[in-house]
């Protein structure tokens, strides 16, 4: 591929900003200067869809009504573990208003009415596991109809508690590991990690050095166990779809973080080509990591639509959402860190257990491995299977649990070495970004006013704490955008990418406007539709970093095409043209110009289009991180045990910031999730029945107005020179440090450490009694 060289801004303005030479593909646009020199990018531009949202016009999946649409509902297992002997749906089929009934088999793509037999029924392994679905004229009829289903269960022993599941003799979630099973060819198949009882692992990540030696050389070694709870996603819009199956393809409205992922799964399951399946996600009521794939509810809706010949809407209700739609796994995290007298870390060893129910993914991430310099590192992460619905990725999966342990223990080591926790990070953290964030954050926060732990007089005590985060700069290269210019003046950017509420639509409009010398409001954004080129799935904070370079590149290519068409009209050559302030100029001769709108009128065709994709990172892929530092001040009432977070200062970087207000909003969100994780939210399961009992917004406590502290953000501009926009996401980084900054502040207030989340009044009172 042809290459060219760009000189790009590199580093942190006001700190170490310099320039760097990057070899990039020849069709990449020229480098943008720093944000101060840009018009649309890096500003607090209003959300392009805000008006639709504040007027109630925005249509979400749950608002979609198609002609003839039916309402789907699913009957779910009331037992955590059972075998199904028989299912009788005859009465349901006769129920007035019911137009389709479907039973899910083990292989839900294949289970039609013909092979619905006991052999094909799945073994139920969690409460809420879907079994039968109906489509009816309305929701209430569907619910009534499901009461007529008769299922004969053989109830089996279950285990839902992490510790009990680890014990010998615990009811097994998965029997007979497939190790040493011969394949057709007679050879032994790959084993994977070992499974012993319900304990699977360990996953050892990427160890380095020799921890034994590291601990032996340490002047101080501290080992602690940190426990975190199960945290539910609870997006306000539940999981759900509207599916319209036709013999020649499917139309699906989905509340999803990945339109293309949903499309691909439906295509695979229903025997269509990907091009025959169209998925639309125009507005989406939050996901936080849990909304991936077709979902069993989606596939059920597909079958019901196929059987009834009508569109079917199937949205989970709040109870179903909490019971079955994912959660952040809990963790028991044993962490041991050794350090020298000067503070340098000599060894980190961790072992963790967590449960994602019947699923995997309950580890504590790689933050302990990555954030600080330490030559010796080892980890063992175990998954414990239980009879509960599977977990799902949740905003910085693993890292939030891992950070609670790591940043608590780093704080404790600093304390033991009699070094200020802020200064201590200067010793062990090599990140330039976090160094600047610590300085700026500490100043805004007033860290110098921090008092000795527990030194406030009286029963109500204040405390200050801080914590840091690290999240890799991920991108998803299969990210494409199209820019269309219309003769009537419209400029459109199109991509399959979805906007979860993060502001993707707006940043796409901003980068296209910037590239074309237009205003953000001049750009029409059409996304969330697989008719358009594929966008990235939104997870791992990849969206901004993946799709905005594609959009800018597409705008740049469209612009070049336009230049070629109108250059002669300005008596010049295309390479001399440039855009700014709604006009196309001849470089060096500003009087020779034409308005962008007039230029479009002169196009040879009604439409002009260009498509471009995310290129590989300039300068090669690297594993550097997005860092943040957060400071918390809390008030602890030592007589009641109640904690209130008074304020948070959050210093963050996400490459080139694209929209300041939207980044602030996302940081606010991450912080509020973190506070809630630290103090309020926890799934409660009754061990006797295996049921989640706080399965509503009434008893599952998410924060409201009075739980929100004063939040100040510092958004650090930082240019890694890696793409045409140099932007990165902020979703996960915003959420990692908050909870542990809060618990470190609690320590500072009361002089006692809490090792288990959420920090309830009971735990504070208990810790104070023990101290």
């Amino acid at each position: 591929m042809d290459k060219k060289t760009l000189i790009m801004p590199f580093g942190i303005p006001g700190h170490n900003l310099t320039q760097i030479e990057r070899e990039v593909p020849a069709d990449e646009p020229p480098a943008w200067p720093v944000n101060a020199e840009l018009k649309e990018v890096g500003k607090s531009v209003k959300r392009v869809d805000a008006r639709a949202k504040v007027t109630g016009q925005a249509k979400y999946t749950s608002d979609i009504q198609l002609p003839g649409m039916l309402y789907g509902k699913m009957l779910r297992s009331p037992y955590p573990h059972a075998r199904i002997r028989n299912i009788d749906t005859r009465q349901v089929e006769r129920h007035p208003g019911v137009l389709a009934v479907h039973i899910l088999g083990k292989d839900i793509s294949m289970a039609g009415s013909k092979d619905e037999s006991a052999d094909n029924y799945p073994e139920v392994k969690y409460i809420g596991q879907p079994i039968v679905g109906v489509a009816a004229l309305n929701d209430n009829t569907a619910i009534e109809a499901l009461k007529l289903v008769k299922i004969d269960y053989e109830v089996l022993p279950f285990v839902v508690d992490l510790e009990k599941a680890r014990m010998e003799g615990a009811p097994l979630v998965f029997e007979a590991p497939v190790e040493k099973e011969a394949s057709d060819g007679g050879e032994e198949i790959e084993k994977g990690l070992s499974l012993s009882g319900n304990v699977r692992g360990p996953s050892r990540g990427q160890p380095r050095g020799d921890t034994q030696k590291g601990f032996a050389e340490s002047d101080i070694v501290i080992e602690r166990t940190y426990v975190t709870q199960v945290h539910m996603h609870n997006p306000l819009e539940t999981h759900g779809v509207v599916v319209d199956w036709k013999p020649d393809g499917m139309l699906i409205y989905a509340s999803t973080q990945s339109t293309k992922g949903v499309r691909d799964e439906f295509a695979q399951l229903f025997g269509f080509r990907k091009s025959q399946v169209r998925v639309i996600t125009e507005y989406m009521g939050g996901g936080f990591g849990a909304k991936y794939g077709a979902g069993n509810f989606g596939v059920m809706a597909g079958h019901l639509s196929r059987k009834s010949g009508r569109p079917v809407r199937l949205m989970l209700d709040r109870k179903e959402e909490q019971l079955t739609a994912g959660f952040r796994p809990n963790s028991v995290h044993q962490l041991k860190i050794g350090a020298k007298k000067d503070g340098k870390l000599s060894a980190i060893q961790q072992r963790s257990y967590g449960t994602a129910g019947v699923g995997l993914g309950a580890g504590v991430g790689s933050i302990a491995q990555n954030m600080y310099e330490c030559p010796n590192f080892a980890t063992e992460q175990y998954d414990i299977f239980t009879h509960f619905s599977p977990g799902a990725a949740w905003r910085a999966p693993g890292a939030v649990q891992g950070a609670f342990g790591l940043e608590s223990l780093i704080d404790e080591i600093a304390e033991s070495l009699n070094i200020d926790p802020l200064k201590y990070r200067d010793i062990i953290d090599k990140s330039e970004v976090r160094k600047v964030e610590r300085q700026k954050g500490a100043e805004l926060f007033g860290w110098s006013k921090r008092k000795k732990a527990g030194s406030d007089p009286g029963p109500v005590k204040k405390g200050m704490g801080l914590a840091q985060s690290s999240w890799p700069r991920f991108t998803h290269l299969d990210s494409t955008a199209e820019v269309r210019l219309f003769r009537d003046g419209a400029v459109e950017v199109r991509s399959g990418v979805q906007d979860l509420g993060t502001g993707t639509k707006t940043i796409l409009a901003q980068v296209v406007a910037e590239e074309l010398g237009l205003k953000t409001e001049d750009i029409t954004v059409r996304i969330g539709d697989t008719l358009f080129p594929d966008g990235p799935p939104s997870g791992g904070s990849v969206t901004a970093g993946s799709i905005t370079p594609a959009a800018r590149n597409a705008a740049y290519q469209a612009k070049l095409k336009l230049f070629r068409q109108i250059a002669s009209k300005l008596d010049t050559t295309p390479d001399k043209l440039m855009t700014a302030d709604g006009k196309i100029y001849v470089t060096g001769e500003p009087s020779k110009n034409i308005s962008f709108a007039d230029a479009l009128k002169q196009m040879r065709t009604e439409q002009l289009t260009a498509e471009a994709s995310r290129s590989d990172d300039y300068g090669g892929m690297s594993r550097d991180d997005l860092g943040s530092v957060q400071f918390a001040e809390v008030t602890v009432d030592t007589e009641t045990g109640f904690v209130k977070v008074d304020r948070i200062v959050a210093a963050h970087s996400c490459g080139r910031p694209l929209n300041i207000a939207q980044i602030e909003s996302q940081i606010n969100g991450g912080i509020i999730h973190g506070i809630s994780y630290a103090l309020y939210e926890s799934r409660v399961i009754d061990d006797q029945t295996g049921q989640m009992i706080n399965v509503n917004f009434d008893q599952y406590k998410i924060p409201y107005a009075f739980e929100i502290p004063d939040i100040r953000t510092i958004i650090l501009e930082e240019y890694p020179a890696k793409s045409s926009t140099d932007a990165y996401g902020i979703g996960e980084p915003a959420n990692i440090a908050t909870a542990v900054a809060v618990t470190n502040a609690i320590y500072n207030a009361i002089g006692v450490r809490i090792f288990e989340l959420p920090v309830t009044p009971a735990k504070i009172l208990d810790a104070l009694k023990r101290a």
Partner: protein
Amino acid sequence: MNKFKWFNAQNIEEALERTNATVSDAINRGSADSAIIKSGGIELLDFIKEGIIEPAEIINIKSIPGLEGIAFDRTAGLRIGANTTLADIENNGDIKLQYLALHQAVSKAATPQLRNVSTLGGNIAQRTRCWYFRSIDHPCFRKGGTTCFAQNGENQMHAIMNNGTCCSVHASSVATALLAYGATVEITSRGGQKKDVSIDDFFVNPFTDIRRESVLRRGEIITAVNIPAQGKNVKSWYIKQGERASFDWALADVAVVVELSGKRVRKAAIAMGAASPVPVRSKAAEEFITGKDINATTAAEAGQKAMENATPLAKNGYKVDLFKTIVKRALLESV
């Protein structure tokens, strides 16, 4: 929700004639043919949505004229119609001045939106929020089952006193204040007979009857709540502690009403919600503080006394400390 019929009652008699079950009856005896009274409807709808009851008919009493309103008289006291919304109680100037603890309790109940709809009658007649009781998947004693799941289960929100049979706590924090003020509940029954039931007697302990939480029977309706006039030297205060400040059920709430003679307490009522299956007054704390000045020491001691008979369960021991503190603080704040 199941299908049900709807009847707009124009008067109390009409409503009482049609009704054949309270919510508690419907939960325990099946609700297939039950006709249940609805005022604000929040509580009823909650049960129907959960599938815990499936009434055949709802008798709307919101449509009955004259069942709402607040009347205050310096000698006769306060009368609040059963259909009066919590919002109207919250915003009533007389109540704010004369019955501060009631104002505080009401304004901390639920959310502003719910207070616009919830009525006083419905609030005190509501059932416990025990998460087992509210779960259709847990057939507990109170729903005619054979066990209390909370005794050996998730009892962190539950009762720390009188908790041997069923350890649920009553949901109404308004009731805590009413108890401290010595309110009476006016109950009207078929044929128009009325009785005034002291709020102490209105609530029913599970060891008396586990299937109900108040004396209200079918064919009866709460028509008003009366609160005696409070003397000039009466002070009151209410504190509620939930997990969240924004809106929440009480983990512990306390209403204190004290009559002072100079600085000395002549008479005291200290009521606690979320401590016991029904709101309770602490006689020990009241007796202790009577005849004494309220100061940090005596208030703290009263808090200790209030918890003398606490029998916390495995996960709710912290509530004992919580009550000690808020009894103390409510006493201190009241003066």
